[in-house]
Protein backbone atom coordinates (compact mmCIF):
# COMPACT_ATOMS: atom_id res chain seq x y z
CA UNK A 1 0.00 0.00 0.00
CA UNK A 2 1.16 3.48 -0.89
CA UNK A 3 1.61 5.88 2.00
CA UNK A 4 0.96 8.73 -0.42
CA UNK A 5 -1.89 8.18 -2.88
CA UNK A 6 -2.07 10.45 -5.90
CA UNK A 7 -5.10 10.94 -8.10
CA UNK A 8 -5.89 10.88 -10.86
CA UNK A 9 -3.15 8.65 -12.24
CA UNK A 10 -3.56 10.07 -15.77
CA UNK A 11 -5.09 13.30 -17.02
CA UNK A 12 -5.37 14.53 -20.58
CA UNK A 13 -6.86 17.99 -21.11
CA UNK A 14 -7.03 20.79 -23.66
CA UNK A 15 -4.97 23.94 -23.42
CA UNK A 16 -6.73 26.58 -21.35
CA UNK A 17 -8.59 24.18 -19.05
CA UNK A 18 -8.22 24.16 -15.27
CA UNK A 19 -7.34 21.04 -13.31
CA UNK A 20 -6.68 19.79 -9.80
CA UNK A 21 -4.58 16.82 -8.75
CA UNK A 22 -4.48 15.33 -5.29
CA UNK A 23 -2.04 13.75 -2.87
CA UNK A 24 -3.63 11.95 0.08
CA UNK A 25 -2.45 9.98 3.08
CA UNK A 26 -3.79 8.49 6.28
CA UNK A 27 -0.59 9.66 8.01
CA UNK A 28 0.39 13.11 9.19
CA UNK A 29 3.35 14.60 7.34
CA UNK A 30 5.58 17.35 8.71
CA UNK A 31 5.79 18.75 5.17
CA UNK A 32 4.93 17.79 1.62
CA UNK A 33 6.67 18.61 -1.62
CA UNK A 34 5.52 18.68 -5.23
CA UNK A 35 7.90 17.84 -8.05
CA UNK A 36 7.46 17.89 -11.83
CA UNK A 37 9.28 15.40 -14.00
CA UNK A 38 9.61 15.89 -17.75
CA UNK A 39 10.43 12.98 -20.08
CA UNK A 40 14.08 11.95 -19.91
CA UNK A 41 14.79 14.12 -16.88
CA UNK A 42 14.86 13.79 -13.12
CA UNK A 43 12.12 15.34 -10.94
CA UNK A 44 12.47 19.04 -10.13
CA UNK A 45 11.02 20.65 -7.03
CA UNK A 46 8.06 22.99 -7.51
CA UNK A 47 7.13 23.77 -3.91
CA UNK A 48 7.35 22.69 -0.28
CA UNK A 49 4.37 23.18 2.04
CA UNK A 50 4.99 23.02 5.77
CA UNK A 51 2.08 24.53 7.71
CA UNK A 52 -1.40 22.97 7.84
CA UNK A 53 -3.79 25.03 5.72
CA UNK A 54 -0.94 26.70 3.86
CA UNK A 55 -1.54 27.94 0.32
CA UNK A 56 1.34 28.73 -2.02
CA UNK A 57 1.14 30.13 -5.53
CA UNK A 58 3.66 29.71 -8.30
CA UNK A 59 2.37 31.64 -11.33
CA UNK A 60 -0.65 29.57 -12.54
CA UNK A 61 -0.05 26.78 -10.02
CA UNK A 62 -1.70 26.85 -6.58
CA UNK A 63 -0.65 24.38 -3.89
CA UNK A 64 -2.56 23.70 -0.71
CA UNK A 65 -1.62 21.69 2.37
CA UNK A 66 -4.54 20.20 4.28
CA UNK A 67 -5.34 21.51 7.75
CA UNK A 68 -4.51 18.13 9.28
CA UNK A 69 -1.32 17.80 7.15
CA UNK A 70 -2.54 14.52 5.64
CA UNK A 71 -3.20 15.76 2.13
CA UNK A 72 -2.26 18.31 -0.48
CA UNK A 73 -3.61 19.52 -3.80
CA UNK A 74 -2.18 21.18 -6.87
CA UNK A 75 -4.45 23.35 -8.98
CA UNK A 76 -3.38 24.57 -12.41
CA UNK A 77 -5.25 27.46 -14.00
CA UNK A 78 -5.40 27.78 -17.79
CA UNK A 79 -3.11 24.83 -18.45
CA UNK A 80 -0.52 25.14 -21.20
CA UNK A 81 1.35 22.46 -23.18
CA UNK A 82 4.46 23.34 -21.19
CA UNK A 83 2.71 22.02 -18.06
CA UNK A 84 2.83 18.49 -19.51
CA UNK A 85 4.73 16.10 -17.27
CA UNK A 86 4.58 13.76 -14.30
CA UNK A 87 3.61 15.48 -11.05
CA UNK A 88 4.93 13.75 -7.95
CA UNK A 89 4.25 14.47 -4.31
CA UNK A 90 6.73 13.49 -1.63
CA UNK A 91 7.26 13.93 2.08
CA UNK A 92 9.70 12.91 4.79
CA UNK A 93 8.93 9.49 6.24
CA UNK A 94 6.29 10.12 8.93
CA UNK A 95 7.56 7.21 11.00
CA UNK A 96 9.26 8.62 14.07
CA UNK A 97 13.00 8.97 13.87
CA UNK A 98 13.46 8.35 10.19
CA UNK A 99 12.82 11.49 8.14
CA UNK A 100 15.97 10.75 6.15
CA UNK A 101 13.91 8.88 3.59
CA UNK A 102 11.39 10.60 1.37
CA UNK A 103 8.09 8.86 0.72
CA UNK A 104 6.89 9.27 -2.87
CA UNK A 105 3.51 9.03 -4.50
CA UNK A 106 3.19 7.27 -7.86
CA UNK A 107 2.45 10.53 -9.61
CA UNK A 108 -0.14 12.08 -11.91
CA UNK A 109 0.80 12.03 -15.58
CA UNK A 110 -0.58 15.21 -17.17
CA UNK A 111 -0.88 15.82 -20.91
CA UNK A 112 -1.99 19.25 -22.08
CA UNK A 113 -3.00 19.20 -25.72
CA UNK A 114 -2.68 22.34 -27.87
Amino acid at each position, binding site marked *: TQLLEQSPQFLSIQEGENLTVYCNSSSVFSSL*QWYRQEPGEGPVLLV*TVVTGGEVKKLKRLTFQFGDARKDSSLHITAAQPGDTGLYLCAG*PNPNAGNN*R*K*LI*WGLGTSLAVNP
Partner: protein
Amino acid sequence: NAGVTQTPKFRILKIGQSMTLQCTQDMNHNYMYWYRQDPGMGLKLIYYSVGAGITDKGEVPNGYNVSRSTTEDFPLRLELAAPSQTSVYFCASRNLGGATEAFFGQGTRLTVV
Protein backbone atom coordinates in the same frame (compact mmCIF):
# COMPACT_ATOMS: atom_id res chain seq x y z
CA ASN B 1 27.48 24.50 -10.19
CA ALA B 2 26.89 20.99 -11.62
CA GLY B 3 24.49 19.66 -8.94
CA VAL B 4 24.06 15.88 -9.25
CA THR B 5 25.89 14.20 -12.11
CA GLN B 6 25.13 10.65 -13.22
CA THR B 7 26.99 8.55 -15.76
CA PRO B 8 26.37 6.85 -18.09
CA LYS B 9 23.11 8.18 -19.55
CA PHE B 10 22.35 4.97 -21.44
CA ARG B 11 23.66 1.42 -21.19
CA ILE B 12 22.81 -2.00 -22.58
CA LEU B 13 24.02 -4.98 -20.56
CA LYS B 14 23.88 -8.68 -21.26
CA ILE B 15 22.45 -11.00 -18.62
CA GLY B 16 25.10 -11.79 -16.02
CA GLN B 17 27.32 -8.78 -16.76
CA SER B 18 28.28 -6.28 -14.09
CA MET B 19 28.44 -2.51 -14.10
CA THR B 20 28.70 0.52 -11.86
CA LEU B 21 26.46 3.55 -12.17
CA GLN B 22 28.33 6.64 -11.05
CA CYS B 23 26.81 9.52 -9.07
CA THR B 24 28.56 12.67 -7.87
CA GLN B 25 27.17 15.75 -6.16
CA ASP B 26 28.96 19.02 -5.51
CA MET B 27 26.52 20.55 -3.00
CA ASN B 28 28.06 18.96 0.12
CA HIS B 29 24.79 17.18 0.86
CA ASN B 30 24.74 14.53 3.56
CA TYR B 31 21.87 12.45 2.17
CA MET B 32 22.17 10.57 -1.11
CA TYR B 33 19.73 8.13 -2.71
CA TRP B 34 19.42 5.67 -5.54
CA TYR B 35 15.99 5.11 -7.07
CA ARG B 36 14.70 3.05 -9.94
CA GLN B 37 11.69 4.18 -11.93
CA ASP B 38 9.65 1.74 -13.97
CA PRO B 39 6.75 2.91 -16.17
CA GLY B 40 3.74 3.74 -14.04
CA MET B 41 5.46 2.57 -10.86
CA GLY B 42 6.85 5.77 -9.42
CA LEU B 43 10.22 5.95 -7.67
CA LYS B 44 11.42 2.90 -5.74
CA LEU B 45 14.23 3.43 -3.25
CA ILE B 46 17.14 1.01 -3.74
CA TYR B 47 19.72 2.27 -1.24
CA TYR B 48 20.42 5.47 0.60
CA SER B 49 23.23 7.05 2.60
CA VAL B 50 23.18 9.63 5.36
CA GLY B 51 26.90 10.36 5.19
CA ALA B 52 30.29 9.03 4.20
CA GLY B 53 30.71 5.44 5.37
CA ILE B 54 27.00 4.96 6.16
CA THR B 55 24.59 3.20 3.82
CA ASP B 56 21.23 1.51 4.30
CA LYS B 57 18.81 -0.57 2.28
CA GLY B 58 15.68 0.85 0.73
CA GLU B 59 12.62 -0.97 -0.59
CA VAL B 60 14.28 -2.93 -3.43
CA PRO B 61 17.98 -3.56 -2.61
CA ASN B 62 18.35 -7.12 -3.96
CA GLY B 63 20.84 -7.39 -6.80
CA TYR B 64 22.51 -4.06 -5.99
CA ASN B 65 25.34 -2.77 -3.82
CA VAL B 66 26.52 0.70 -2.88
CA SER B 67 29.40 2.40 -1.14
CA ARG B 68 29.91 5.93 0.18
CA SER B 69 33.60 6.56 0.70
CA THR B 70 33.29 10.35 0.28
CA THR B 71 30.53 12.91 0.73
CA GLU B 72 30.48 13.56 -3.01
CA ASP B 73 30.29 10.07 -4.52
CA PHE B 74 27.67 7.34 -4.23
CA PRO B 75 28.17 4.62 -6.88
CA LEU B 76 25.61 1.85 -7.45
CA ARG B 77 26.91 -1.58 -8.42
CA LEU B 78 24.98 -4.26 -10.31
CA GLU B 79 26.84 -7.54 -9.96
CA LEU B 80 24.89 -10.04 -12.09
CA ALA B 81 22.54 -8.15 -14.36
CA ALA B 82 19.05 -9.61 -14.83
CA PRO B 83 16.23 -8.53 -17.18
CA SER B 84 14.24 -7.43 -14.11
CA GLN B 85 16.84 -4.69 -13.59
CA THR B 86 15.89 -3.01 -16.85
CA SER B 87 14.79 0.42 -15.65
CA VAL B 88 15.67 4.08 -15.37
CA TYR B 89 17.94 4.79 -12.41
CA PHE B 90 18.08 8.13 -10.64
CA CYS B 91 20.55 9.38 -8.09
CA ALA B 92 19.46 12.18 -5.77
CA SER B 93 20.89 14.18 -2.91
CA ARG B 94 19.53 16.53 -0.29
CA ASN B 95 20.65 18.43 2.75
CA LEU B 96 19.92 17.58 6.37
CA GLY B 97 16.38 18.20 7.57
CA GLY B 98 12.91 16.90 6.78
CA ALA B 99 11.73 19.58 4.36
CA THR B 100 14.84 19.97 2.24
CA GLU B 101 14.75 19.78 -1.55
CA ALA B 102 15.89 16.63 -3.33
CA PHE B 103 18.13 17.27 -6.33
CA PHE B 104 18.18 14.62 -9.02
CA GLY B 105 20.61 13.58 -11.70
CA GLN B 106 19.44 13.15 -15.28
CA GLY B 107 19.07 9.41 -14.92
CA THR B 108 20.60 6.28 -16.45
CA ARG B 109 18.46 4.23 -18.80
CA LEU B 110 19.60 0.62 -18.41
CA THR B 111 18.47 -2.27 -20.58
CA VAL B 112 19.44 -5.85 -19.73
CA VAL B 113 19.12 -8.30 -22.63
